């Protein structure tokens, strides 16, 4: 190999900066050329090391292994000033990391895992030894101060990419109107077994045990997996966890396709466990026929509430509200109310406001949980309640609801029909997005992510 020098200036026009692409695949950067600040060729990217010693879900890339012939060097993230699709450039003060070589002259490290050597093309087995899949590629992403591993690509797109047919495959799929997505197993679930035993990679959690994790965690993973796999995971969870997981998923499209692939019966069981407003939201996006099928499989009372909610426009108070709230008849005293509260509150999401209903369901006033607890047992609810209740009507627009909640500093607002009959409540978090949008004065950190 001679001392190749290519002026990167000529390449700049052609090759996009990799950093501006959030994610990339291992196969896309392997064998990329590395130049130093004087445009002298240093070598090719041979492998990527990640630090496995720290127990984090998505470990950081600790080094890029650069090889030129038998000469092996390692550079960390900050040593590069430019990541591009056809070359990486080192910064002027890049010193490189100290490299330990094995007897055969290969890079060696006790605490690091090499993605190409130890993970790429290996088999993944779940803890029960079943499900044979292979790591076709590895997905990584640039974050603020480094690069982290997202997960292992086990799908056909990865395979095609490795064969250099990735684009063709996607084009062909588009031609047949078939949507294909990468099948990624989140890194937190794959555990490369130590360096001595590098034949197989274990899926740390068997599908059956995924439920031990918090639903929000499971939702995070599911968002990165294929719909099929996610559906499989959801099926393996108990209904309550599955319901929570489903409502933690942020992409609505994904929620819907999951429900579709679960099958009517399972979907109905899971939706039964969800707060009615969320169930209504999801069902509202399905076709009428599908929604009706699922509704008829749900338990009758729940289905009734969901139907009621679905009849309202999604962007009005009626569409936003949930029918799960706590209300007491005006005849109750504090002691009776507390006893009743203990019975029903565990299943209610929003249990701070307790509404007082007149006969016929008319909204009369509100008591906070604090009011109730500090009241003397024999005091009538009507004595301690607040009569000036902020409320909204069924057809009120989302923005107006949000504004009211924000103005009065409420955690939830009751919804009544034209006859003042209490129909449901809307909680703060159901309209939070809208609140943030309309309230320009909110501190910066509340305005959501970048």
């Amino acid at each position, binding site marked *: 190999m001679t001392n190749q020098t290519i002026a990167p200036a000529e390449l700049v026009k052609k090759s996009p900066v990799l950093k501006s692409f959030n994610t990339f695949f291992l196969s896309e950067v392997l064998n990329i050329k590395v130049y130093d600040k004087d445009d002298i060729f240093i070598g090719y990217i041979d492998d990527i090391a990640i630090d496995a010693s720290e127990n984090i879900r998505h470990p950081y890339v600790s080094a890029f292994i650069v090889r030129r012939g038998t000469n092996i060097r390692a550079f960390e993230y900050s040593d590069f000033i430019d990541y591009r699709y056809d070359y990486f450039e080192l910064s002027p003060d890049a010193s490189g990391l100290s490299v330990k070589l094995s007897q*055969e002259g290969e890079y060696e490290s006790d605490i690091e895992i090499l993605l190409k050597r130890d993970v790429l093309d*290996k088999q*993944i087995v779940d803890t029960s030894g079943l*499900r*044979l899949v*292979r*790591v*076709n590629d590895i997905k990584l992403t640039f974050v603020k101060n480094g690069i982290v591993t997202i997960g292992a690509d*086990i799908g056909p797109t990865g395979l095609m990419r490795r064969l250099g047919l990735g684009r063709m495959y996607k084009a062909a799929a588009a031609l047949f109107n078939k949507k294909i997505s990468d099948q990624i197993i989140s890194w937190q679930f794959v555990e490369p077994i130590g360096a001595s035993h590098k*034949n197989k990679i274990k899926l740390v959690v068997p599908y059956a045990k995924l439920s031990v994790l918090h639903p929000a965690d499971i939702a995070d993973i599911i968002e990165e997996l294929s719909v099929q796999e996610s559906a499989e995971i959801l099926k393996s969870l108990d209904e309550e966890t599955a319901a929570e997981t489903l409502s933690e998923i942020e992409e609505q499209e994904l929620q819907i396709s999951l429900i579709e692939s679960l099958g009517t019966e399972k979907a109905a069981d899971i939706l039964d466990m969800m707060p009615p407003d969320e169930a209504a939201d999801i069902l509202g996006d399905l076709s009428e026929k599908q929604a009706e099928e699922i509704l008829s499989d749900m338990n009758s009372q729940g289905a009734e509430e969901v139907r009621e909610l679905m009849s309202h426009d999604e962007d009005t108070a009626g569409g936003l509200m949930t029918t799960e709230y706590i209300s007491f008849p005006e005849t109750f005293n504090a002691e009776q109310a507390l006893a009743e509260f203990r019975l029903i509150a565990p299943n209610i999401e929003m249990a701070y406001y307790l509404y007082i209903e007149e006969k016929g369901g008319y909204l009369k006033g509100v008591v906070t949980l604090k009011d109730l607890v500090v009241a003397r047992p024999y005091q009538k609810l009507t004595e301690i309640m607040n009569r000036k209740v902020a409320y909204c009507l069924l057809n009120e627009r989302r923005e107006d609801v949000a504004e009211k909640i924000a103005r009065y500093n409420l955690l939830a607002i009751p919804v009544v029909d034209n006859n003042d009959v209490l129909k449901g409540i809307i909680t703060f978090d159901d309209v939070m997005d809208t609140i943030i949008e309309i309230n320009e004065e909110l501190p910066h950190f509340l305005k959501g992510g970048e």
Partner: protein
Amino acid sequence: MLAKLKQKWKQVLIFLSLVGPGIITGNVDNDSGGIATYSIVGAHYGYEMLWTLIPVTVLLIYTLNASYRMGVATGQGLGDLIREKFRVKGAFILLSLVFLANLGTTTSEFAGIYGSIQIAGINFSQDFSLLKNKAVLTFLTYLLTISMAIFVWTIVVKGTYKMVERVFMFSCLFYLSYVFSAFYAKPEWSEVWRGFFVPTIRYQSAYIFDLIGVIGTTVTPWMHFYMHATMLEKGITAKTYYISKWDVVIGSIMTDVVAFFTIVACGATLFKQNIRVESIYDIGQSLIPVAGSYSSLLFAAGLFNASLLASAVLPLATAYAICETFGWEIGIEKEFNEAKMFYSIFTFMIITGCALVLIPGMPLLLIMRISQVANGILLPIFLFYLIIIASDKKTMGEFTFNSYEKSFGWVSTIVLSILSIMLVYQGLAGI
């Protein structure tokens, strides 16, 4: 003394329990393509090509042993090792070639099934006048061939294949008929031994074609995948390797003993009587010394049996190898939806193999021979992969090839490559 005897006895027992991926594979190796190729060689060249069996046997022991050692050293399948060493592109190239070669071989197995049914039909036509009608005969042959395809598909999918395998293994006794036929035909044994020990090479494309055919039908890539999977299933480990390596040696020698007697039988009958083999039917006459007028029936039975076993093994081994390499669900015990690729490959091969044979006017014998030659041309490429993996210290540990073994492999690869290039260069003219 007694203790020593006891130990010997124990070793024999262990050996028997591990019999024998090598022996089973060796048996399956004598499939329709094998019978056709060996018979033609005997019929066309007499005993002249017998000598090739010596280097071929050595090569077979060598490659199967390499595959055995890989399994023992890593506990991984051959597909695993190829994928991990040669990555996606390298694995894709090899597996595509293996797939094509195996598809050809599967077709040749169905040619064997079709041919043997046809021979039986012609035979029975003397007793059943209905069969004298050509249309009826053809229709029945078609029907039976298709039912055999369905039968093969079913036994594999239903998982009863392993059981069936054992039944088939017994029927390998059929090959004994060649041994008897060879003896009854009373060949000039001095000529036989001269052909066996003195190499004769002719620089004719037909000769090279048949030479590559003999090599290709004996040392096939698919049998390595098959044996490798079988041995992993049996749980052979480094501890028992010292015994089970003999399994490979015995299996390989058995294969070529059958090949030897097939060639001798055909040489002593067909070659001597100057019968030019034009179709499968002609080969049956080589068994006249042992079966007389029943010779063609006996031949049909043997061919049928060998073809049927291999027609199940080949698609199975291919689907297994491809799915293992690319990380697709494998499983006979799984539902179609869970192992789509596995079932698709398997089913595709059986349907294609069967359908090609049913095209009217298909030259069955030529299909059998060409598919073996295709395997022979593929062999040096396969050897290249095999040697690279077996020489990799990181993978193989104490089982790594030493420098002699490596050089033997490379020399064989070069010789085989030269033969293949010569064949292609001379064109396929003059077959």
